[in-house]
């Protein structure tokens, strides 16, 4: 029997993977994908709760999240492409011109 706990644990594992990925990776695209991973981990919890509570609201929010994630992917990838054209790298340690 798969209970809500399993879903939530899976969500937490995916979210943690996303966080750790954001914190330790250098490649901008991978960081970007980790952010997507975190968003989708949250989506899993939303769907699980929606099912468990018999409410459509959770599923509704997933659509919002996916919309935001799509928009973010479009903008974010465009920025990364623009940065790559300028600096020939997507290593975020090299993209530090705003630093003091």
């Amino acid at each position: 029997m798969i209970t809500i706990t399993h879903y939530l644990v899976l969500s937490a594992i995916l979210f943690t993977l996303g966080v750790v990925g954001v914190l330790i990776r250098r490649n901008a695209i991978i960081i970007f994908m980790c952010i997507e991973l975190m968003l989708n981990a949250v989506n899993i919890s939303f769907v699980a709760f929606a099912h468990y509570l018999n409410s459509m609201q959770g599923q509704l929010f997933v659509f919002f999240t996916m919309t935001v994630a799509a928009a973010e992917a479009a903008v974010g990838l465009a920025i990364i492409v623009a940065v790559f054209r300028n600096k020939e790298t997507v290593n975020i340690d090299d993209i530090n011109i705003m630093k003091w």
Partner: protein
Amino acid sequence: MLNLVALILLFPLIGTAINGLIGKNLRKETVGYVACGAIGLSFFVSILVFIGLLLLPPDARLFEKQLFSWIESGSFKSAAGLQVDPLSTIMILVVTGVGFLIHVYSIGYMHSDKGYHRYFCYLNLFTFSMLLLVLSNNFLLMFIGWEAVGLCSYLLIGFWFEKKSASNAAKKAFVVNRVGDFGFALGIMLIFLTFHTIDFTEVFSAASHGNFAAGNFTITIITLLLFMGATGKSAQIPLYTWLPDAMEGPTPVSALIHAATMVTAGVYMIARCNVLYMLSPFTMTVVASIGAVTALFAASIGLVQNDIKRVLAYSTISQLGYMFVACGVGAFTGGIFHLMTHAFFKALLFLGSGSVIHALSGEQDMRKMGGLRHHIPTTYKTFLVGTIAIAGIPPFAGFFSKDEILLESLVRGNFIYWAIGALAAFFTAFYMFRLLFMTFHGESRVEHHVAEHLHESPKNMTLPLTVLAILSFFGGFLGIPGASAISNFLSPVFGERGHAEISGTEAGVHHNAWLPYLMMVVSTVIAIAGIYLAYQMYIKKPELPKKLAERFSLIYKLLLNKYYVDEIYDALFVNPTKIMAVQLWKRVDALMIDGSVNGIARLVGWFGNTLRYLQTGYIRNYAFYIVVGCICIIVYVALGK
């Protein structure tokens, strides 16, 4: 005519404004005319006021003019008001009259100075301040004048401020006067606390209507504090040290401020407050004693000084001492009379010395003078008159006033005052004739290149000398014993107190009618003895002074170095203050205040510098902090349940 009194103040103020604001662009003649014209007009109005006062009956000779209400704060009221009475009238006549002559003299004396307009601006401002001092009808306005003359004195002593010694002398005068003014200000505050008013008329009527017994403690403190101010301004022991140094200023300034007018402010103030002083026998004793000691002390220093102006400076201190003796024994008329005659002959002597210095291209050392009487005859003749007047030979002015003081000090005071005064008079006659002989008689010791330029001063310098010489000769007739015009004139101010009690009884002392005449003879003999001694030492046997100096080298050195008072003050007050100031600067200011301020800044800087490393600029570090924060919150919430 009495209503015109405000004009007396206005003219010098206008002169100051014109010369101070646009004097730089005016021609020299115009500057001189403006300054002299201002004082001349002032003098003219003073005469009108004097005539106006004479037209009133003697008992009604008190006129007050309220200009505007000045300070009103709670129960404290002070109006800017002027007071015309016989005492202030004599003072304004002396200040504007002698002041006018000195202004005229200054045109010649200062003609080649580049600070010409500045000089006349200050001189007019001084005259204004002095007139304010003597005309005000309350203590506070008087204090304003009192401080303003101090300021002008400072500005004019330091007139040649490029010279280090001049600017030092100016500072010394200012600081020493500050000590006295501190007492004066306290005295005024105490007057307000005691009488609840600072108006002269109200204070004196309250004091004279028997609310205070003689010897009242508060009155004694008040009068002593006021006298402290007087010792500063009028150069008495212990605050006299600034006056000899004040000779660094231009000579006409020495004549006007440091001989004729400003330094007599203390005498005027005590005479003005005679009601208060009479209530305190203790203060009177202090005043007379300090006056007597100062008279002798300064005269003894004057015996051996070689700088012509310094001799005159010590002579001034000594003569001021006489005036305080007169006030201290209650003979206020005598004090004011001597103030007046002293203004004439001392201004004459200073201007004469200025003329000598002018002729010798700036030489002030009497050892480099001598035999000048043929070269500058007008100066010599007028100087001779002044010297005889100060020495006290009848019928010159100084004789009458000094004789009156000596007589009064014997009759009202005691034998000691008289003896000290007589000894000081002997010294005075000696050192003044020593000065005269060293400067004008004997062999010329003038340096060769200076001797070539020897010349008599121009007309505008010799004319004031002549006028002052005439005044020094005739001034004394105002106070002939028995028929003293000045004593009658002043009697409304001093009442019976200030009268010259020539014959009759005073305080239970019976004395004979022949005493005044005896005293006159004695005074004259003393003066002649002094002159004879000076003649013997400096004309007949010029080698004698040197022998005496070697014989009594200890005393000679002591006198020449002015009893080392400056050195003692340096050791006792000046250097400890300096050391304290340096310590305050280095320890308190630099170390503690600057240290704490800089320390706080440095601490903040260090803190920021350290915290700076938190702000790496790496997004993941910030994200990490966020995650750590989130975990903390989750743990807290989880544990909280």
